[in-house]
Every structure is written in C-alpha cells, then in structure tokens.
C-alpha cells in the first residue's frame, strides 16, 4: 500500500478484519457490532437484520413484528401497479433482469404511490405528529417549493390516493393489523382518525400512507423510509416480470385500440 495519505471509506455501520493471506478479502464482518457470519447468520431473522442495518440496533419484538407485517404488505403491489408494470414491460421484451428491477425502482420512486410520496408523508408526520389540526392545515395549505427541483411538486396530499374512491380493503386491513401488532402510537392514531384525514385530503388513504405511519412508528427518517419502501416492493416486480418474460409480448396488453393521436 502506498505510504502517502490513504483515502478511506468512513463508516459507523460496518467493520472488517482481513483474511491472513489476502488483505482484499474480509475474514470477519461486523454490522453495528454484531458478527454477521458467526452470529446474525445463525440467530437473526432477515427482517431483524434489515432493521439493524437501517437503525443500528436490534429491534424489539414489536418493532420486528411491525416491519415484518409491513414487508409482507408491500412485497407485491400486484401486476396492475405502475412499478410492477414497468418490470413486466422489461420482461415481455426480453430485457435484462436487472433492467426490470431498475424499471420497477424508477417508476416506483415517484410522488404517486411511490417512495417519494413516502418521503413526503414522513415529513408530514414529523411536522404534524398526532395533531388533527396540524394535519388539516398542512394538507389544505401544503408547503410550496421556493425554487425548482428535479422532483415535480406533489399534486395531492402525500399518503393518500387522488384517484381513489374509498379506502381499499387491503389498505384498511394492513393499517388495522400493523396498528395492532406494532403498538405504535402513530399507526393507532391514523387508524382512529383516518376518516377525518381523508376528508381533509378529499381522497382515501393509500398504502404509501400506511407505510409512512409504520415507518414513522419505527423511527425511520424520511430518506430511510424512501429507500426501504423501494426495497420492500421489489419482490413482486421481480416475479411478475419473470412470469411475463415466459409468457411473452403477445399475451401482454399493447393497448392496440386504446391509443388516440390527436392533431
């Protein structure tokens, strides 16, 4: 190794010791103090390890159950979801499997039902907590961007579905379940005040809103929630893309009669 100043990657999350015969290979890896391959591998669940990675500590049983429930609820948004459709569009054309994942992430990152919406919803939770008055004010007078950003401004209250009619059954089931198992005050408050919030937003609660409340109960920061939401929704995109790859483009909608080009 050169003797001059050596640039390093600073981290509080990960420590490695080298193999005796190879300084470029790790013999031991410690994640937030835990030996990954001698301890976590044998003793931790995947969900608990996920929590550890983001929060740098072992979850309580309630936190673990809450994250587990959220992960199941989000794992497959179903083949009609925008992000899953993006992945399937990669699949039917025979694109790389990685491109299907990239497509799902790119489309599932947005302000409508995507991870950016969760980010904003977390900001709303930070600002409003369990105050109906604060929520009413923020929903009715949303913050305005002072200068243009690469993100477009929100067009609806984050966490709610502007195209919804009433709160869909799976959203209500997920909210009720997570509020019950997580013991978190914000999920319980959301469950109790959903109707009032939906009236302010003039549209029903969405999965993004439930996810935001759950992740706020888990004390995730908005940017952590944004990342985890992206991650948790990928399994469905993967399997639906693989399925459509096998079936091929002939069996997948092309909207042959739905495209109208106006002058």
């Amino acid at each position, binding site marked *: 190794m050169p003797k001059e100043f050596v640039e390093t990657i600073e981290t*509080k999350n990960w420590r490695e010791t*080298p193999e005796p015969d190879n300084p470029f290979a790790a013999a031991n890896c410690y994640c937030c*103090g835990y030996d990954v391959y001698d301890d976590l591998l044998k003793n931790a669940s995947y969900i608990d390890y996920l929590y550890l990675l983001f929060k740098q500590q072992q979850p309580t049983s309630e936190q673990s159950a809450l994250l587990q429930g959220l992960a199941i609820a989000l794992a497959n948004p179903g083949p009609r979801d925008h992000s899953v459709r993006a992945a399937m569009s990669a699949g039917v054309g025979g694109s790389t499997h990685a491109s299907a994942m*990239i497509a799902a992430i790119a489309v599932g990152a947005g302000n409508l039902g995507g991870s950016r919406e969760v980010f904003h919803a977390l900001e709303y939770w930070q600002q409003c907590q369990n105050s109906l008055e604060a929520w009413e004010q923020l929903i009715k007078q949303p913050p305005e961007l002072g200068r243009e950003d690469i993100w477009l401004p929100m067009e609806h209250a984050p966490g709610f579905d502007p*195209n919804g*009619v009433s709160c869909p059954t799976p959203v209500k089931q997920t909210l009720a379940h997570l509020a019950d198992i997580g013991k978190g005050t914000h999920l319980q408050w959301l469950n109790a005040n959903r109707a009032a919030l939906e009236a302010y937003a003039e549209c029903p609660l969405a999965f993004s809103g439930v996810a935001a409340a759950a992740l706020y109960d888990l004390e995730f920061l908005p940017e952590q929630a944004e990342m985890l939401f992206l991650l948790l929704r990928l399994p469905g995109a993967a399997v639906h893309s693989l399925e459509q790859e096998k079936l091929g483009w002939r069996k997948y909608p092309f909207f042959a009669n739905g495209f109208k080009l106006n002058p």
Partner: protein
Amino acid sequence: MPVHSKFEKFEDNWQTSMGGWFPGETVVLRGKDVFKDLNNSSWMEYLLFASTGKESPKIARLMEGMWVICTSFPDPRIWNNRVSALAGTARSTGALAAAASVAVTEATIYGLKPIKGATDFLYRADKRLAKGETLEQIIRAELKQYRSVYGYGRPLVTADERVEPMMEFARSIGCGEGKYIKLAFDVAEYLAASRFKYQINIAAVCAGLLADEGLSPMDFYHMATLAFTAGSMPCFIDASNQQEGCFFPLRTSRLNFTGDETVKHWRV
C-alpha cells in the same frame, strides 16, 4: 353499488398530440411525419424538437457544444462515470451502466439539479430585478433561504475550466450576448467579491445561454438528461477491457470504522 372511479374514462383511452407509431406505416412526432418532415434533422435537432417542440438548428448546435465541452469528461473517478466503470469492472452490461450513470447524474453537487436550478434562479432573479430589487438583495435572499446559489461554487476546485471554452464556442455561433448570460456573470462578479468567494460554474453559463434562447428550466432539464453518456460509456468500455474486478480495489483497511468496536451478541 355505483361505480365512479376517475379512471373509467381513461381505460384503453390514451389521448395525445405528442406522437406515435402506426405499425407498418409511419411515425409521427408533434404533428410531423418523422420519415418525411424530420428525416434530415440531426439527432440533436430531433431531440430538441421531441423534448421542447422547438425547431432550431442554432439551439441544437449550442446544446451539442455543451454536451461535448461541458458534460462528458471521460474520467472514471467522477461519480456518475464511476458507476459505469464499476459496472464494467463487475462485468455488467453497457446499457445497465448507462442507465445507472444517467440516474446518478441527477445529483446535487453536479449534474441535473444545478442545471435546472441555475436556469430557474436566473429566471427568478430577472423577474425580481424587473420589480426593482437589487442583485445584492436577490443573492442574499437566495443564500439565506437555500445556503447556496445553483450555478456557483464547485466541488474539488474553485475555478471551472469549461467556462471560457464554452463561451468561446457560444460566441462562434452567435450566442453569448443575451441578458441572461450577462446576468449569470453579474451574479458571478458579486459572489466572487463576497465572503463566499463562489465562482461561476458551467451550470450557470449554460443556463444563461439557453435562457437567452428561450429554454425553460424544464426544457433544459429534459435536454440535459442524456448529456453525460459520452463521458460514462468510455469509462465502462475501459473497465470492461481491463482485468475483471481491478478498478480501484479496496483492501479491508480502507474501511475507516468510526463506531464502537465492542462485539455484541444477538439476543435470540
């Protein structure tokens, strides 16, 4: 139960004037026949028309100069290019490398945020000047609210070596004398003399030049999205052609662990 979703009227009904493909027949873009009306366009003219609706060989040429001079440095250490180099060394594909690098160019300290932000700033500053505010008031307010002015200051180095070549090219095709580019340099003059010592970077220069040609922040953003690919692709190719995995390998000691070294044990 009555059905009243807002989606019903959109089912199998996508109405557009943007364009489309009529299989086996023709392709239309913004009302023009691609094979008959646009077949002699340069690719940049076509992209400009597709993205903005503007038909201007001059703007397309200006944009092309920007892409060459300002946005495509083939250095694999630059973060967006590094992604392509890593894809190459890890033996991923060129398209995946390009897709990731393009996405990564939507950055804060370089790339698309400053490009869009600088254009937006110049338009806002011009409006406020027209209302009677001074440049100093406008810049101070921007710094107070955002702690930065898009288009000014730069990571790693202070001066931007692209400014002069870009301006030289712009003047060579009849650009570079409009009010927005003048404003961009007026802001630079103020900031250079202030305690911040920020120097103008290429984002403000390009923003000023393109605002003078009537491009909006969104126009510039859409046009610039692919601008960095000629820098990242050679990085991918280079890393692909060298020994696999050898792009800046890191030994374990290159991790500077700053946390608590106490080993913990998982509670089962």
